[in-house]
């Protein structure tokens, strides 16, 4: 990973800013909401306390009925038409209660308007069996029909049932069963409507006809001969008391309710027995919309879906916080709608008489104000931190780019200096006072040391040969003098051997100083123009004479190659290369010299079959005192190819070695018509 990416990654840390801001806002909001809930709780407690005066209004439960045995009588806003349709009831369809029927679910609702009670029931029935005159009444009948029965009682006295059967779809006559038996009840109007897979019944019953306890049962038969099975809204033999809003409590709720709050009074089962609604719904939508809203929602704590705060359409409040209140604990809840932005704080407080819970007061308040405040703050915060983040990231990126460019420039310059061996050259950032400047200076220092070391190595051979020459002269001259003395046989042998050794030493010394002499020659050489082609041709012939056990081939792709420089030196260079080629090839091998012209450069290639060059040696091959020959070959000090390189570079060219198919190829490239004086070192 480069420096730029690293710093970019680091700059991501600035994203902590919006996160921290969100945390702060969230904390603030929670605190605000807590405050509001506290206030709400105080109010709810006060309302619950005042409810004690109206405790007689609360329905008394003897505990013999569960909530499931009870029906809730909704209050309608308008008079529905008795036509078998539910759509003119001012109730949401969720208000329909369902129970299990023989052939599928049965949905029903009971409501009141004015002085009448309305019934709507939707029965799933695969096979609707209509009544015949025999089955119209249930008493003594041997035939059966599909039947809906509304059980009504006011224990312990009254116990009645109103039965709805149809001889045909449409208006039907209802029968009331009382202690006096079945008789048609003309005050009840009812409508039977067939629908695919069942039927619907809608009925209007004057409230006076009904008792306090209501229950619904459905008789479903497959054919007229069997009694069929019965589904019922209550479990016992008798239904529980019907629940509905109690006018007095509703009125009281209306008194206590404040703006933008909703007040619900429930009985011990959670049945809504009083309610007043001043909540303004969906007001939060203005504070943020679309994408921004979604971002905030991702960032902020979610509440429960706001729809759950609505009064339960079944008439019974079953939210956990209400249930908790009914168990005697005052509890709060927090609702929020992602789509509309509606947010509601809710508190439920138990209404207790003595230590008995007789109901609960549920108080809800819209918190859109906080939300909008929060969103406004949030959007400002997000904008500011986003800009900050971008600016910081951009600045870091730019800084990193600048930094990495400097470092790269430094590394490139250092590599260049190494490559061109121009080790004293100034590196970039050398004057900078920062760490990169330090780095540059240490680089320079290292390069300089390296240069000095290289220079030392380069001059070592000639210095050494120079220093050794005098002692060697002492040895040789002494030996030569010794030969003129009277010596016995053995001494003659020793002196001869000593002479041989001294001779070899002399040759080595002269090889060692060759490089420096070539350099010197190069500096003083006056370039002459000559035909390289002719030189190579003639030299190849000479090599054939010298190395009789090798075959030499000379191929040239040019007719004549005008070069400028010192032919003698170039020949000396060739000598080194050919000497090398001969050493690494076998008797009878063919050594090829080739000349070609390419891009204003003359390429001289010497190719010999033989072992490949080790890859790691290739770059140092032409350095001073580097030899890839086996170490016991004392004739070579690794100066031959170095001299070849000096000559090639002295002619403004360069030398390289490559492995080729089955051998090694040394290539020297010199500019055609070059001037060696122009490239003095």
């Amino acid at each position, binding site marked *: 990973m480069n420096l730029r990416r690293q710093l970019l990654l680091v700059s991501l840390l600035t994203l902590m800013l919006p996160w921290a801001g969100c945390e702060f806002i969230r904390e603030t909001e929670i605190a605000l909401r807590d405050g509001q809930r506290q206030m709400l709780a105080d109010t709810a407690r006060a309302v619950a306390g005042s409810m004690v005066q109206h405790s007689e209004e609360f329905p008394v439960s003897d505990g013999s009925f569960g909530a499931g045995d009870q029906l809730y009588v909704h209050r309608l806003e308008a008079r529905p038409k008795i036509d078998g349709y539910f759509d003119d009831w001012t109730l949401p369809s969720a208000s329909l209660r369902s129970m299990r029927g023989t052939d599928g679910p049965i949905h029903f609702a009971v409501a009141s308007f004015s002085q009448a009670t309305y019934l709507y029931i939707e029965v799933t029935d695969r096979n609707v069996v209509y009544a015949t005159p025999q089955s119209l009444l249930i008493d003594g009948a041997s035939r059966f029909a599909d039947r809906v029965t509304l059980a009504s009682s006011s224990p312990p006295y009254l116990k009645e049932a109103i039965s709805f059967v149809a001889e045909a779809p449409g208006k039907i006559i209802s029968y009331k069963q009382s202690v006096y038996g079945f008789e048609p009840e003309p005050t009840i109007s009812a409508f039977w409507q067939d629908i695919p897979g069942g039927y619907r019944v809608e009925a209007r019953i004057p409230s006076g006809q009904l008792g306090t306890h209501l229950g619904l049962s459905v008789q479903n038969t497959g054919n007229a001969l069997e009694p069929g099975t019965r589904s019922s809204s209550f479990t016992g033999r008798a239904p529980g008391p019907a629940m509905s809003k109690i006018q007095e409590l509703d009125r009281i709720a209306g008194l206590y309710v404040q703006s933008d709050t909703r007040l619900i009074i429930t009985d011990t089962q959670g049945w809504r027995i009083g309610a007043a609604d001043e909540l303004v719904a969906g007001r939060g939508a203005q504070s943020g919309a679309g994408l921004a809203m979604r971002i905030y929602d991702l960032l902020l704590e979610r509440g429960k879906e706001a729809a759950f705060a609505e009064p339960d359409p079944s008439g019974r409040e079953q939210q956990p916080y209400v249930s908790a209140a009914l168990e005697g604990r005052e509890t709060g809840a927090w609702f929020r709608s992602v789509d509309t932005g509606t947010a509601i704080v809710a508190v439920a407080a138990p209404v207790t008489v003595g230590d008995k819970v007789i109901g609960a007061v549920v108080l809800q308040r819209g918190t859109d104000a906080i939300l909008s405040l929060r969103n406004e703050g949030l959007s400002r915060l997000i904008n500011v931190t986003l800009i900050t983040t971008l600016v910081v990231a951009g600045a870091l990126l730019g800084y990193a780019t600048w930094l990495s460019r400097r470092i790269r420039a430094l590394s490139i310059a250092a590599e260049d200096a190494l490559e061109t061996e121009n080790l004293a050259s100034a590196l970039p950032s050398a004057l900078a006072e920062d760490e990169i400047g330090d780095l540059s200076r240490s680089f320079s220092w290292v390069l300089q040391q390296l240069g000095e070391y290289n220079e030392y190595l380069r001059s070592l051979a000639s210095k050494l040969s120079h220093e050794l020459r005098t002692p060697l*002269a002492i040895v*040789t001259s002494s030996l030569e003098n010794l030969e003129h003395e009277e010596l016995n046989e053995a001494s003659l042998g020793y002196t001869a051997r000593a002479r041989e050794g001294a001779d070899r030493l002399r040759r080595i010394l002269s090889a060692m*100083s060759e490089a420096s002499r070539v350099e010197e020659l190069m500096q003083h050489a006056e370039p002459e123009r000559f035909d390289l082609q002719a030189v190579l041709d*003639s*030299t190849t012939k*000479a090599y054939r004479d010298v190395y009789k056990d090798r075959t030499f081939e000379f191929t040239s792709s040019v007719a004549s190659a005008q070069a400028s420089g010192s032919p003698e030196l170039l020949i000396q260079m060739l000598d080194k290369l050919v000497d090398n080629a001969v050493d690494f090839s076998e008797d009878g091998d063919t050594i090829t010299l080739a000349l070609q012209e390419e891009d204003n450069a003359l390429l001289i290639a010497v190719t010999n079959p033989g072992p490949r060059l080790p890859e790691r040696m290739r770059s140092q091959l032409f350095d001073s005192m580097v030899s890839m020959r086996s170490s016991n070959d004392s004739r070579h000090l690794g100066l031959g190819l170095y001299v070849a390189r000096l000559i090639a570079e002295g002619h403004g060219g360069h030398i390289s070695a490559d492995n080729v198919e089955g051998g090694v190829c040394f290539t020297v490239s010199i500019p055609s018509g070059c001037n060696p004086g122009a490239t003095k070192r």
Partner: protein
Amino acid sequence: MAKRIAIVEDEAAIRENYAAAFSREGYVVDGYEARRPALDAFESRLPDLVVIDINLKDDVEGGFELCRELRARAADLPIIFLTARDSEFDAVSGLRLGADDYLTKDISLPHLMARVAALFRRLDAMQKPHGTESRITRGDLSIDTERMTIHWQDQPVGLTLTEFWLVHALARYPGHVKNRQQLMDAAQAVLDDNTITSHVKRIRRKFHAIDERFDSIETVYGMGYRWISH
């Protein structure tokens, strides 16, 4: 009368060795280890030949200095540089100061003796009248082997002993290629390729000074040189 040779050399072992070799040849040898004592001695009496090392103790260029002073005092005194310094630059400087030869310490004693003898021979021949029997003529070139002098178009070419022998070896058989080894043998010196090359270059330059169209020494690349008579 025996010739007197002075050796100015700071390295006692070498000085003694050379002195022994010269004595064996019948020369009288005086050894000096520095410039000052040598000059003091030469004040009273000049030797017949001086062998000088360039590097004299702390006097790095003392040999050059000595050569210059001697040359100023005696124009004909044969002076030979015998030194460990093998650089082209030193050789050129030495010869330019008027030395008759510039030898490196690689040279063997017999070679050195031959050189010294040849120098004396040339000196002696200078005093004798011209003899034609010792003369080789090749076109514009004439070589006096007795005096070891060379003329081109009747003008003397100032060659050192080594250069003389190289030209002599080439011109004796015109058209024949002499390789480096042969030339080295002729010059009675151990010279490497580069030294031969620069010797030939220097010879050509000296001829060019007399005749700009001189091109009698031809390079046969990879083999050697040959003399071409026009």
